[in-house]
């Protein structure tokens, strides 16, 4: 196993210990998402300190607690797609899942941006000019749209999307109020997709991207008709 520097080792330990503030925790989680050796170091620290958790006197829950959990199970159905094991998205999402959706929405958008950038930088010169983080109604970052200098635009989902039988997902962009939303792609399930913006202006800051549920073959009116799954504004990357 790669030996981490003392600094990284201590940081992993502090994350497991719990002394970091919210911003530092966010930074560590971003690091865990892209650095397997660091992720393993955090796990090792969690194991080392685990016996201390067992020293907390158990507290029998009020019977009402189970009723509350049970009554909400239907609202949180088990995810059906196995996240690619060990992939950075899986690791990232493991951590994102814990985050308070609204309170940390901005930190979260920042993290997704940071990781997306770190990843593209690591892969070479290809770096998106613009990035849009698409959030669900309850504030979870559920997909990222990257806009590259060569005009390529792609959508990368960060979580599975429940698509009802007989519906597809349509991707829209809104560049101006006068033009209204324009369809730029369709997909049957959550997967990465190259988007088609040939007939549009170049994506720019504050252009909106959103995903809606539509009938097979796409919206019959050419404008969004179904519920919005997620949306977000493009921001310039640095």
């Amino acid at each position, binding site marked *: 196993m790669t030996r981490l520097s*003392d600094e990284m*080792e*201590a940081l992993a*330990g*502090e994350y497991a*210990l*719990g*002394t*970091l*503030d*919210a911003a530092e*925790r966010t930074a560590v989680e971003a690091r865990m998402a892209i650095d397997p050796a660091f992720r393993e170091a955090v*796990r090792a*620290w*969690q*194991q*080392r*300190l*685990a*016996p*201390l*958790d*067992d*020293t*907390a*006197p*158990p*507290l*029998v*829950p*009020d019977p009402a*607690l*189970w009723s*509350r*959990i*049970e009554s*909400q*199970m239907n*609202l*949180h*159905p*088990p*995810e*059906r*797609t*196995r*996240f690619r*094991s060990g992939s950075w998205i*899986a690791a990232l*999402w*493991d*951590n994102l*899942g*814990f*985050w*308070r959706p609204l*309170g*940390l929405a901005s930190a979260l958008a920042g993290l997704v941006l940071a990781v997306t950038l770190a990843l593209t930088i690591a892969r070479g010169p290809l770096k998106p000019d613009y990035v849009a983080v698409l959030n669900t109604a309850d504030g979870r970052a559920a997909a990222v749209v990257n806009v590259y200098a060569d005009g390529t635009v792609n959508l990368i989902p960060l979580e599975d999307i429940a698509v009802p039988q007989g519906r597809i997902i349509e991707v829209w962009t809104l560049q101006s109020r006068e033009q209204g939303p324009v369809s730029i792609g369709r997909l049957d399930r959550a997967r990465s997709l190259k988007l088609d913006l040939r007939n549009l202006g170049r994506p720019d800051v504050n252009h909106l991207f959103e995903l809606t549920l539509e009938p097979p073959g796409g919206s019959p009116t050419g404008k969004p008709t179904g519920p919005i799954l997620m949306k977000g504004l493009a921001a310039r990357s640095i």
Partner: protein
Amino acid sequence: MTLLARYGSLEAAILACASGDRMALRAIYEAEGARLLGIAFRMLKRRAAAEDVVQDTFLTLWEQARRFDGRPGHGRAWLTTLLRNRTLNVLRGEARLDLVEDFEPLGLHAAGESAEEAMTRLSDESALKRCLEGLEEARRRIILLAFTEGLSHGEIAARLGTPLGTVKSWVRRSLLSLKECMG
């Protein structure tokens, strides 16, 4: 026979949750609910807040069971990490305001008592206890307070009246010597 025994192991029950087996979640709750609530209560010191975190943890477990890697013996650690992360989010996040405005009386434990208690409750055979005993008392106390009560650097500094920089460097050095000692 406990409900969990029907699944053979905690890990098997977590995997059963992934396929939508509601009884499996109940089995895990019966086996782990009181332990998890105890951990959250020790950190949050408010019963209602601790129960909220346990509720969140079980719903997350139900929703995300597929993300568990299934490694034998890792189920408890996975579950505890879910709970600790959520608890720390409450302690560090905006929810802190809720805690301040929550007038539910504090638990009976005097602040800091949990640190001493945790030390005495650790098994004498555990490497963690042996290595913690190797730390200077003031530094050991900081590590215990941080973990059992979820205190941040700043909170520890305020609680002990020690400068923030000192607390940070003590924590850092204590962790590195713990690692050295435990391997």
